[in-house]
């Protein structure tokens, strides 16, 4: 009787794992669909079959493809579509780990002021000029440096012995306000043209995607995600609370610093190339949590996939809202993010 119960419990666990892998599989299919749609939409509308053929051709399948379609797909739209997937994924994972680290569903690199710091860095570079560097290099660099400075401040707090997660979140929110005010100050003292340039950077845009940008982002992101996955169980244990994680043998301060550093590097990298894209960092992990729970083996990849899907579909929307024009993607994510946010808050109440 008891051994029946035991094998039942074991097979239930395996079934639950399979269910969570299927959710990941389904999201992967949904993401691929949105990715293809993202490539298909634009000033010249391509059909899905053409896009699929062009993609298969690019990865070496011997399929005949129209040369114009091939150029549109490979040179113009594919980098943007891949950028949407990677950036969305990174924002999702960044939010997931911040929420894990700080034990708070409201935490994300955005709400902790890291994105605002990047915005301030970019604005400052635009204001003072690129100091002899190419503007395409100087602005992301400025954003990266400021984002890492904000992260360094959070690190310094995190290393202090008696700083709790709650205090770290409050400090992050204070940073958010500080950098937003400084950003407004730079805009206030700038000429109208420069102010507009800053505003467009802040909206967030995938249009600067190029194969060289992508290789940097993809390289950094994959290394960072590899390290996060390696700590998957420790991060799961951390959600039981710091004291309990310690009791299970986790070096909590080291894990906290390491994860904060990885998230900062990822966020700084993507934000410096695409600007500020909000809400994905909060929304994606919360949806992932509802779908697969908080076992990081599933939670982390699903947060990536949901973040990637949200930004990829926002990219599609940004092209179809005003036909022929590119709507700033940062605005679209906020607009689709807000209803989700309300749904989450009200869902929690239920």
């Amino acid at each position, binding site marked *: 009787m008891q051994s029946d*119960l*035991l094998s039942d*419990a074991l097979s239930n*666990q395996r079934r639950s794992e399979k269910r969570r892998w299927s959710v990941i599989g389904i999201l992967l299919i949904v993401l691929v669909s949105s990715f293809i749609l993202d490539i298909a939409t634009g000033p010249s509308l391509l059909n899905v079959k053409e896009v699929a053929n062009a993609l298969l051709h690019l990865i070496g399948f011997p399929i005949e493809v129209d040369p114009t379609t091939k150029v549109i797909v490979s040179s113009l739209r594919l980098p943007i579509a891949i950028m949407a997937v990677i950036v969305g994924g990174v924002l999702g994972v960044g939010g997931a780990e911040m929420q894990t680290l700080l034990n708070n569903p409201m935490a994300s690199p955005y709400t902790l002021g890291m994105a605002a710091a990047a915005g301030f860095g970019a604005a400052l570079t635009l204001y003072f000029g690129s100091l002899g560097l190419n503007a395409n290099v100087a602005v992301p660099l400025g954003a990266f440096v400021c984002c890492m400075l904000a992260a360094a401040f959070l690190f310094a707090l995190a290393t202090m012995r008696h700083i709790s997660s709650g205090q770290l979140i409050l400090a992050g929110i204070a940073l958010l306000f500080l950098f937003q005010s400084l950003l407004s100050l730079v805009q206030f003292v700038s000429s109208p043209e420069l102010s507009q340039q800053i505003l467009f950077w802040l909206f967030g845009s995938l249009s600067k995607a190029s194969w060289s940008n992508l290789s940097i982002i993809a390289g950094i992101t994959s290394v960072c995600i590899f390290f996060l996955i390696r700590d998957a*169980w420790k991060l799961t244990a951390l959600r039981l609370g710091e004291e*309990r994680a310690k009791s299970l*043998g986790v070096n909590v301060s080291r894990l906290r610093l390491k994860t904060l550093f990885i998230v900062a590097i990822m966020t700084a990298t993507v934000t410096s190339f695409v600007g500020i894209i909000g809400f994905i960092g909060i929304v994606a992990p919360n949806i992932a949590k509802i779908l697969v729970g908080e076992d990081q083996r599933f939670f982390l990849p699903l947060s990536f996939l949901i973040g990637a899907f949200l930004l990829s579909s926002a990219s599609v929307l940004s092209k179809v809202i005003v036909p022929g024009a590119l709507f700033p993607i940062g605005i679209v994510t906020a607009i689709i993010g807000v209803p989700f946010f309300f749904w989450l808050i009200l869902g929690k109440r239920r």
Partner: protein
Amino acid sequence: MLKIKNLNVSLDNLTLAKDMSFSLEPGKVNVIIGPNGTGKSTLLKTLFGDILPESGDISFNEASLKRKQLSQWREQFGYMPQDIKLDIELSVLEVVLLGKLDALSLRLDDALIKKALIALEKIGLLHLANRPVNRLSGGQCQMILFAQALMRTPKILMLDEPVSALDLHFQHVLLDHLDTETKQQGWVTLMVLHDLNLAAQYADNLLVLKDGNVIASGHPSEILTPALVKDVYDVNAEVTKDSYGIPFIRTIRQGFTPHQPTIKSQHLQSKRTICI
């Protein structure tokens, strides 16, 4: 043997251990009792290496606790802190599995899952294995965390008020299991309890803490006296012994007058008599 020698611990200018020395033998259940705020939890945290003592030495089998080898030191421990809140979207089984954190990989091993299930079976909670842990009662969470601590197969097991949320049945399930395993596995078990009668029933060695010092230690039948209870808790008590010689503590309320049955309860009594 776990040895504590001349330990001094202060937190926020409050002395919680003053030149404290004692040693704990393997295969025995050691229970710490003492008033609130006297440093019982702090002592456990210090032994675990979470709080740095001002001076003194803590050693296990002649190897001293050193800052630089903290992770190796902690590997020997199973530690169940006081907090029993489990607000996480995980199944009971997954929470228990976390007890064996170092052995977990991306694909969970069948043998490891079975080990966690057996730990749950031993405490009578196998039927909860696949339930979400955030929907359990506080008492059930406490039992799950006990199973998690056992998963670590420790040499030293420390439990901070492990029965605070448990009903009478599970108090005894947990403590009986703890007693058996301690003796079978030869663990050094150290737990904080507030219930003096449970402490008297389960302790092989009782440590009484007051003002940063162990003011009495030994078998409960030898040290639990009305004078000790009065000295430590400032409460009057009667201490009797059962047929096994285990002390039973009954506290006496000050200014107590015997209870007079109310009219209602007299009425109920007479009704019951009629029914019978």
